[in-house]
């Protein structure tokens, strides 16, 4: 397999897979509507809104072109001229070959960051069109293998890294011991599977496996705030790769597991660790995948920390974070999630020198690691290249620390740091809050 070549399991019966794709297209159109498919006018002005196009300006990377590949199939089966004279409107049959071709377009050339959509001259939500494309491909069994493996891990083991319950418990124990030593207090710890706590805290398994500092920091902040909290050893994963693969059935199941576990533990609230797509999945898409309202509130840790600071439950001293800090906005948290201000308010309170990237908030550029791109190694070269836009933004701030409330973004930023020699440290917001704690 060469770089950028799709790495998918070829369907046993290609024709049958195309039939499933056409059925899914109809189902998706019925469920979500097709306003945005009808509205694209192929003006070609969206190129510079996309980090992938900016770093590799070929027509294939233009958001409108990528969306058109999906819209062409929509037109073929759901518009009059598409049915009777497809060539006139660029409508294409949804064949096995067309589906194979679509894989590289929707998984390999788009992170579904949505920046093109909010800047679209018409107002077409191209990010959502691209996700419809992923839903069609998922139905036809064409999810890239590595991405599907993550989804399978979540479904089979409860977390994307297949961490066992014992491993989680032992990690929680040694992090607790380190934290007790660091804070000089035997009471601070990471509670696991404790019933009747007010809060169940979900984390990215990456925190458990490779980067425990943010989990440790969260435990410190919870302790300082006197929070009643616990983690589950079974379903504690804040991520949901069903959002990326386009498999809503899997996405629903992953959501259900965590919600039901939170209820089983008797908690009043589910708090999500800093994770862009995890926030979007649990907060916004999850109830719609499950077709019902949650019986408990779901909030981001950012909202909780801001509440602690503003209510005086924790005291912070911005002088403890002296280096210049900038903030990377995760697309799914800010653009699709609506959370742009809590992290800024927090950073203003806990950092001595906080500067914004330009552009920021809903106009931020994707770091290149979104849309499950980090798990699809076949697109690794393009991912790092597309991250140059973000690297240039970071470089322009002269910041030494890049805070980002997303672990996928953090992974990509760490790689960009190495590749583009940025000389930065990448931190979660909770780590900066922990550093600034006054106990």
């Amino acid at each position, binding site marked *: 397999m060469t770089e950028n070549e799709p790495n998918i399991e070829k369907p046993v019966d290609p024709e049958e897979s195309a039939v499933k794709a056409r059925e899914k297209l109809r189902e998706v159109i019925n*469920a979500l509507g097709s306003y945005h498919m009808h509205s694209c006018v*192929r003006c*070609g002005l969206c190129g510079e*809104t996309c980090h992938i196009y900016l770093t590799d300006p070929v027509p294939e990377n233009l958001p409108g072109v990528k969306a058109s590949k999906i819209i062409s199939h929509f037109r073929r089966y759901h518009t009059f001229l598409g049915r009777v004279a497809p060539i*006139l*409107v660029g409508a294409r049959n949804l064949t096995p070959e067309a589906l194979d071709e679509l894989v590289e377009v929707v998984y390999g050339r788009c992170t579904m960051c949505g920046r093109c959509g909010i800047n679209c001259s018409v107002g077409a939500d191209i990010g959502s069109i691209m996700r419809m494309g992923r839903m069609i491909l998922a139905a036809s069994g064409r999810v890239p293998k590595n991405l599907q493996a993550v989804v399978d891990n979540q479904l089979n083991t409860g977390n994307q890294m297949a961490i066992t319950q014992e491993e989680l418990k032992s990690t929680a124990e040694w992090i607790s011991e380190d934290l007790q030593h660091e804070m000089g207090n035997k009471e601070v710890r990471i509670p696991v599977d404790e019933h009747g706590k007010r809060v169940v805290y979900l984390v990215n398994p990456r925190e458990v496996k490779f980067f425990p500092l943010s989990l440790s920091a969260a435990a410190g902040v919870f302790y300082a705030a006197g929070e009643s909290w616990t983690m589950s050893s079974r379903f504690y994963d804040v991520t949901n790769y069903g959002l990326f693969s386009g498999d809503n059935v899997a996405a629903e199941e992953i959501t259900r597991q965590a919600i039901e576990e939170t209820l089983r533990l008797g908690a009043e609230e589910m708090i999500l660790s800093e994770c862009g797509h995890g926030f979007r999945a649990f907060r916004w898409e999850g109830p*719609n995948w499950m077709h019902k309202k949650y019986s408990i509130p779901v909030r981001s840790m950012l909202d909780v920390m801001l509440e602690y600071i503003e209510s005086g439950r924790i005291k912070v001293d911005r002088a403890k974070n002296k280096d210049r800090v900038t903030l990377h906005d995760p697309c799914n948290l800010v653009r699709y999630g609506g959370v742009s201000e809590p992290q800024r308010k927090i950073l203003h309170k806990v950092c001595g020198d906080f500067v*914004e990237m330009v552009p920021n908030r809903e*106009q931020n550029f994707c770091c290149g690691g979104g849309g499950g791109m980090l798990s699809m190694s076949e697109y690794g070269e393009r991912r790092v290249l597309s991250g140059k836009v973000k690297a240039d933004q970071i470089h322009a701030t002269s910041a030494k620390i890049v805070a980002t409330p997303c672990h996928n973004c953090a992974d990509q930023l760490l790689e960009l740091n190495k590749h583009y020699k940025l000389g930065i440290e990448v931190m979660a917001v909770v780590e900066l809050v922990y550093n600034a704690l006054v106990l």
Partner: protein
Amino acid sequence: MFLTERIIASVSIIWAISALIYQWIKARGKGRIDYSVQAGNPIRGIIYNFTWAMLPSHKETISRHPVWFSIGLLMHIGIFIAIVQVIIDILIPKQYMVPIPLFPNPIHDVIITGLFFILAIASLCAAVLFLKRVFSKTLRYMSSFDDYFSILLVLDFLLAASFRELRIFQWGPFFIHSAILFFYLPLGKLRHALFFFIARAEYGSRLGYRGTYPAKSGVKE
């Protein structure tokens, strides 16, 4: 006068409106119930998406392409005027046979001359956009027959409206040229005449619901 042509134009407009409404109903799908807990205000999101979000300061496709955006805008202003023109012509057949009562002749002439210039400029803009689609490698890559044909129809419609202002065309030919545009409107990309508003409203509503819109005072490029 020109009764047959007037009827054809009327039918074409009724067809366009009916077909667009049908498509709107079909495009809605089953309708979405949002089970998530609302964080913002959908109405404010819609208002924002039709106002501030369309300013160059908030939309990169405008700030990075001011010339192309202006050309597109001028063309659409012309289209709007021409559509109003054709509707008035259908409903008030004798409007130009006598001076408009409210205005003395010189003002009437100024209005007509002004409309002609706007329509002529809009026609020029449509021609430029057609040529851009022909000569731009990127646009050619993403275009089908519909994309070229639609802009040519618009150009034809605008030219017909311009000629009608100058009385080069009588009503008859203007009605026929208009009818061609309206008959095709719901079939190809021109249907964005409706879906521009619906898509922008839906997107604004969704982002408003989530609290993304109205966008916070971000630092812009």
